[in-house]
């Protein structure tokens, strides 16, 4: 694999930061799963557990002004780019204080401030939109890039290749991040993709690509930095395949019978992204076990507060039914 093997130079502070961010995502998602079970969250709810290193690693390679957008598995992307966990959770519960006033739900949240452009419920619809954000960046003469996340399932949609073509043709500064968790809902990669290497999918359009171990946050960051450099220097788009794994089902209602418990357990035991960073921190003596415990406690508190907030927030006023349809 044309992977970026080189790991990013990293300080203890950075490692602790990634640990904290990944842990926040995991605990947040666990809490969301719990609230779903309690009937506080309805509809679809797609959890990111297992994939934390992808978005945390790439956010570490981003700079102010970069834009990002993703599919319906979007809670982590929002947390990682700095959106308020309370607002995200309150949107999951469909309440007034949710980021979309309760009108978007799990799959549809946005933040102009953090340049987070959704939250898209239609598989791959975010891909041309991400290229369009890059077009806007280029048009305005900014050196910002668009992180356009999509999964291995979305990678088989036609509009992805329409976007590849135009992005290459117009040298748009867009990083197509393929989060390959190996299952398009219940269909394994082997049963849905004609070739195994998604990072080569841009080759026909002359788009450079690389694959990286998405369970290793430092490798992801390093690969992200290469991709970002490529885009910022005006070389057009880049395809970054990040090989990852989701521990939970596709959504809360997916029993995940298409894979064995052993398969999942093996990844958890040997490749868990948070354990990996934890080990590096302890081995490098960047923090003690007790230090990490207090971080865990702090994160738990943040998540619990977001849940309490999300449950306490009232449902949106009925007058909101007819607002925000047109400007």
């Amino acid at each position, binding site marked *: 694999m044309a992977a970026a093997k080189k790991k990013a130079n990293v300080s203890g502070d950075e490692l602790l930061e990634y640990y904290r961010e990944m842990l926040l995502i995991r605990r947040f998602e666990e809490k969301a799963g719990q609230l779903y079970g309690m009937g506080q969250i309805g509809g679809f709810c797609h959890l990111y557990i297992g994939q934390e290193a992808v978005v945390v690693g790439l956010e570490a390679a981003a700079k102010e002004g970069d*834009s990002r957008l993703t599919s319906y598995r979007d809670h982590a992307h929002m947390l990682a780019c700095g959106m308020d966990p309370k607002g995200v959770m309150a949107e999951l519960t469909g309440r007034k204080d*949710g*980021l*979309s*006033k*309760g*009108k*978007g*739900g799990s799959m*549809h*949240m*946005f*933040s*102009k401030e953090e340049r987070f*452009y*959704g*939250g*898209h*419920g*239609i598989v791959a*619809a975010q*891909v*041309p*939109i*991400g*290229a*369009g*954000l*890059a*077009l*806007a*960046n280029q*048009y*305005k003469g900014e050196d910002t890039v*668009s992180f356009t996340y999509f999964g291995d399932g979305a990678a088989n949609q*036609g*509009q992805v290749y*329409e*976007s590849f*073509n*135009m992005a290459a*043709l*117009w040298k748009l500064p867009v990083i197509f991040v393929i989060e390959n968790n190996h299952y398009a809902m219940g269909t394994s990669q082997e049963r849905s993709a004609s070739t195994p290497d998604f990072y080569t999918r841009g080759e026909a359009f002359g788009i450079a690509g690389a694959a990286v171990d998405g369970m290793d946050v430092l490798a992801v960051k390093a690969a992200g930095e290469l991709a970002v450099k490529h885009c910022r220097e005006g070389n057009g788009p880049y395809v970054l395949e990040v090989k990852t794994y989701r521990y939970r089902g596709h959504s809360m209602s997916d029993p995940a019978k298409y894979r064995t418990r052993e398969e999942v357990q093996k990844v958890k035991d040997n490749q868990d992204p948070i354990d990996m960073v934890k080990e590096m921190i302890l081995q490098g003596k960047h923090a003690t076990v007790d230090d990490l415990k207090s971080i865990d406690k702090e994160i738990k508190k943040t998540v619990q507060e977001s849940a309490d907030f999300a449950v306490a927030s009232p449902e949106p006023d009925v007058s909101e039914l007819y*607002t*925000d*349809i*047109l*400007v």
Partner: protein
Amino acid sequence: MAIQILMPALSPTMEEGTLAKWTVKEGDSVESGQIIAEIETDKATMEFEAIDEGVIGKLVVAEGTENVAVNSVIAVLLEDGEDASAVENASAAPASEATVTDTTPAAPIQKTAEVGFEDIPDGTTFTSTTVREALRDAMAEEMRSNENVFLMGEEVAEYQGAYKVSQGLLDEFGKKRVIDTPITEHGFAGIAVGAAFGGLNPIVEFMTFNFAMQAMDQIINSAAKTLYMSGGQMGAPMVFRGPNGAAARVGAQHSQCYAAWYAHIPGLKVVMPYSAADAKGLLKSAIRDPNPVIFLENEMLYGRSFDVPDLEDFTVPIGKAKIWREGNDVTLVSFGIGMQYALEAAEKLADEGISAEVIDLRSIRPIDYDTVINSVKKTNRCVTIEEGFPVASIGNHLSATIMERAFDYLDAPVINCTGKDVPMPYAANLEKLALVTTAEVIDAVKQVTYR
């Protein structure tokens, strides 16, 4: 026997064209297949080849002549052994009514405010302008005043527009702002939505709205719904425009009217102008609107001229109907090319002593219900006219609204004149039957007026 060379039809909707240039002169020998002229259609300048060989006996129509009707004699070709005397007979019939180009632009017409132009200051002059030019002018004006407005679509730049609507824009604004896309509707519609999210104001030209079906997901799910789903944080300030509805003889896949489809969607605005003034004024409003606007044009209307007011910044508000003709006996409601049948019917009905009020909705979403209801309260009768399919048509929706809001005023059921419930046939006779006609409108009016 000398051969008549006739003005060719070079596009589905071409009825006349400009004989831009002769590439041969009288007395020249020509081979079959040799290019003898350049002819400008409503879409492009085309080379015209000789079908037969011979000597050019006479160029009947001079270079630069505009409005040369299809099938009129433009030249006479002499066959072997014929002399100039053969020209006389051949060029006699059927005579062309073409006129030589008048290069001076039509003088502005002084007009007093008329129906539908109430908002225009007294003394405003008007210039006869085609719908095509009006659309281009609207885009150019808005692009001049707002750096973030840009046009993208198939053939909009170097080709100057598949229907020449974007003619000249590339020259003025450059390729950054007039972008030729590959043939990839779903993809470029999505890219435009992203650009709109990112703070730009894209105008997306679809070569026809039939092709926009490929992009439907991006238009509906991404452009129309995001404002709501984001709780008002973020929307798509953009315009999707292009020809919609039947052209002529292009068959089922290229002849559909999508007015009712888009009208169905909360989060969109939908406009469908008839006249050039409305095309211009509404397109300028659409470009400025912070919402996604579906702007439905019509190929048959592109070449038609209407008076457009000579105002520096002429806009028409979205959501306001226009009364083209006042009347007392029946209300005719239409939009887009349907207006042609409504106005023709009203003219003929007037001869029979029936006074029809004709309303052009102009906007399909939001609809100006009040103008329609107030008119029906006056006339007590209503006929709607549109080119789209009958089931779940705009007319159906208006009928329901009139029933709810003016039931007691109705003296007859509302009749909807629509296109027929069939895919558009190719055969000329069947196509005519599939479209709504002036005669059908007149019949409907007679039914609701019990005459």
